[in-house]
């Protein structure tokens, strides 16, 4: 008889920390191949169209960066939440609420046209997202409510609030009754600049900067240390003089602010106004990005690009193979599943035990 046995390692395996996401991606590609084959397509063609074809053109790379940017920014904030053991699932709602607050200047004060509007919108969006995220944080610290539920429920509140705003008080008088707000003026949008054939706006360098800042904070500041300690062992954290309550507020506020920032930048670059739906679920997908990136800033940057490519891949197989783009969601889910499973390898060794060996021990 043969069986697999998990043997606990004394220390985390550094090699496996790096390798486990690679293993997960490889398994996901194999899984995708099986799905393509089951649907009657050549698995290699399917894999080509889904994973590789989208990034063979400059336009594809531009799309990849555009999609990855909000994912990375949101996932950075979520990683701080998850590392400190705060389960914020509501980044999508914080994104929406942040975008609403950030859009106040061009919508309510359309005559205030000034270079200051741009930074003002970014700051207001961050404040709005942070405030909205502090609701589940406060509920958790004051009443012990489960933040997973409250933060998730608040997503629907935010989305419905946006829906009501664009249909009601903020509806554009020149919009032919469509549920949209007025178009943002020139200082309220992020214009794309040509960078070697790829058109990028300000949000991509902001995301890159945030990756670097958070990497430094986590690696070599006391705040980063506090985040890790409180996440792993609240009792040891309080022994170090850190406060779990303050950390909950900090982590939620930070991730809410980043989600709000990402939200308003999506509106300012891709849409140029508010409408009932402003995000294709960036706030939820960022959860996968955060874990796929091992809750590590640089890892998140890579994971953001990988996941963004699955959005493009979904569109690609729809046009090339006439398959449903929903397959992208399936593959994202499977990827998260494999990431979590492959994480076992970091703390455990897998050993093949044969029946003979097992018996030999007692003979």
């Amino acid at each position, binding site marked *: 008889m043969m069986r697999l046995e998990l043997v606990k390692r*004394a220390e985390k395996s550094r090699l496996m920390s790096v390798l486990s996401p690679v293993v997960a991606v490889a398994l996901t590609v194999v899984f995708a191949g099986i799905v393509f084959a089951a649907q009657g397509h050549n698995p290699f063609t399917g894999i080509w169209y889904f994973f590789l074809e989208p990034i063979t053109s400059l336009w594809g790379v531009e799309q990849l960066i555009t999609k990855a940017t909000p994912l990375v920014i949101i996932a950075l904030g979520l990683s701080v939440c998850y590392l400190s053991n705060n389960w914020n699932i509501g980044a999508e709602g914080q994104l929406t609420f942040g975008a609403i607050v950030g859009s106040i200047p061009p919508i309510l004060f359309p005559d205030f046209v000034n270079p200051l509007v741009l930074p003002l919108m970014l700051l207001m969006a961050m404040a709005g997202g942070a405030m909205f995220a502090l609701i589940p944080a406060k509920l958790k610290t004051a009443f012990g409510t489960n933040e997973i539920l409250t933060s998730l429920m608040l997503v629907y509140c935010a989305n419905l609030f946006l829906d009501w705003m664009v249909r009601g008080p903020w509806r554009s008088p020149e919009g032919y009754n469509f549920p949209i707000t007025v178009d943002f003026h020139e200082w309220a949008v992020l214009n794309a600049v040509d960078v070697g054939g790829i058109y990028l706006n300000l949000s991509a360098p902001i995301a890159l900067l945030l990756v670097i800042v958070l990497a430094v904070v986590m690696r070599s500041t*006391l705040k980063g240390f506090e985040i890790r*300690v409180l996440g792993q062992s609240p*009792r*040891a954290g309080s*022994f*170090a*003089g850190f406060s779990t309550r303050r950390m909950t507020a900090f982590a939620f506020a930070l991730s809410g602010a980043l989600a709000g920032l990402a939200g308003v930048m999506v509106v300012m670059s891709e849409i140029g106004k508010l409408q009932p739906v402003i995000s294709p679920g960036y706030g939820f997908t960022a959860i996968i990005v955060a874990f796929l990136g091992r809750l590590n800033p640089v890892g998140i940057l890579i994971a953001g690009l990988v996941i963004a490519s699955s959005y493009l891949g979904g569109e690609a197989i729809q046009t090339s193979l006439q398959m449903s783009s929903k397959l992208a969601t399936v593959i994202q889910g499977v990827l998260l599943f494999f990431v979590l499973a492959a994480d076992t390898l970091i703390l455990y060794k897998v050993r093949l035990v044969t029946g003979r060996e*097992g018996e030999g*021990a007692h003979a």
Partner: protein
Amino acid sequence: MGEGTGDNIGDMLRRVGGDTPLLEVRRVVKRFGSFTANDEVSLRVMPGEIHALLGENGAGKSTLVKIIYGSLQPNAGEILWKGKPVTVASPAEARALGVGMVFQHFSLFEAMTVAENIALALPNCKATRELSDTIARVSTNYGLPLDPNSHIADLSVGERQRVEIVRCLLQNPELIIMDEPTSVLTPQEADQLFVTLRRLASEGCAILYISHRLEEVRALCHHATIMRRAKVVAEADPANETVNTLAQLMVGNEIIRVIREKRKLGPEAILLKGLTQISLDAFGVTLRDINLSVRTGEIVAIAGIAGNGQKELFDALSGEEPVEKEGMVIFAGEAVGLMDINERRLLGAAFVPEERLGHGAVPALKLSENVVLTRHGTGEGIARRGFTRFGKAGRIVEKVTSLFDVRKGVIDPEARSLSGGNLQKFVVGREVERAPKILIVAQPTWGVDAGAAAVIRQSLIDLSRNGAAIVVISQDLDEIFEIADRIAVISRGQLSKAEDADTLTTEKVGLLMAGGAEEKGAAAA
């Protein structure tokens, strides 16, 4: 005792059945990767024998016991039960053979009753009235009175241990393995346990007894097997050995005796004035009107059975739990009751909690990071302008490691990879190296072997003689009498007056621990 008087079965079995051991372990080898935990270990336990298994932490006792109990499988060697080779693939198979085990850490559900807990361990058994009757009968029979319907949460530690023992007895074992059974008991409770164990042995049940307390091994056990570094190094008849010779066999060389010079008392450094702390936790203990004064240069020990307010007292002293009025806790003349733990550290105080992993240290963090844990706010520059300096922390790790002989595989390992004794040396050393003026330490040598315990205790005495005021919260009376200048006893959240250690005896402290402290505390107040 004359030959053939047949005073009891156990003695007879030990004499008559001398050639067939109940349990024989032959040349067992157990490896974990490159590390060998048991190296050709052999052991013979006779029926009706109380057999001591001695050794320092990490000597391989637990591994051997786990192999016997079926939770680990050996890489080589064999196990014979009543002369026949057997394979013990799981604890269930061990129980079927007749091997029972009482663990050091109890595995009981606090919110359930005694009968329900016991029923859980028995195959296909429900907590029926019949079972309750059996429990009541067996427990009184063996001098372990228990009410089957009381909830575990309401029981003392000694009573909880009784539940474990009775649970084990109901499976009709022929061999009972006991891992450090007296570490949580008062001297009186321990004596009661010895009566039970002798009774069981006299009925033919063998007992494999693991303990660090050599005095009780001498008094109780018929035979001792001593392990050191994964091997059996000696067999001995404990009655013919002294505590010192046994300890030498365990450690392999002369153990360091703790030297306690006379104290030179300085000014008052720790003052508790009417410290009262209502516990909001259902399982917590309310502290009532605690008064204590400790001067620099002395060690005051707080004895007591676990769960009598030690945790709450430690939290109030460390500042993890703010107290009601700032004047209830005074360090070096300054009222610190409302200060947090780092503000107190900045005043020269240091703390070592009972739980090493998860409180004193974060398991998955490196030792250097665990130095940052308690020393980032002490003004030593380990954290500056928000940035941590792990290099500086690493140098402290090296200093603590060499001062306290912390054994580690790599330069900066994760805390959880250290053995219990080594981690404890690190956690104490991390604070002592700072040369604090005030040190509050809980269970400084809990579950630590004799060699490491001596190092830790000596370091506490040296620190106090160099002008620190030290409070040691401990259940270990040997330790308390070894290092304390004065002793107070905590019982149900009340503290007795701290008296000179020279004027107290183990029995007197034991009585106070068992509940006498409350009246005393009330009288003192």
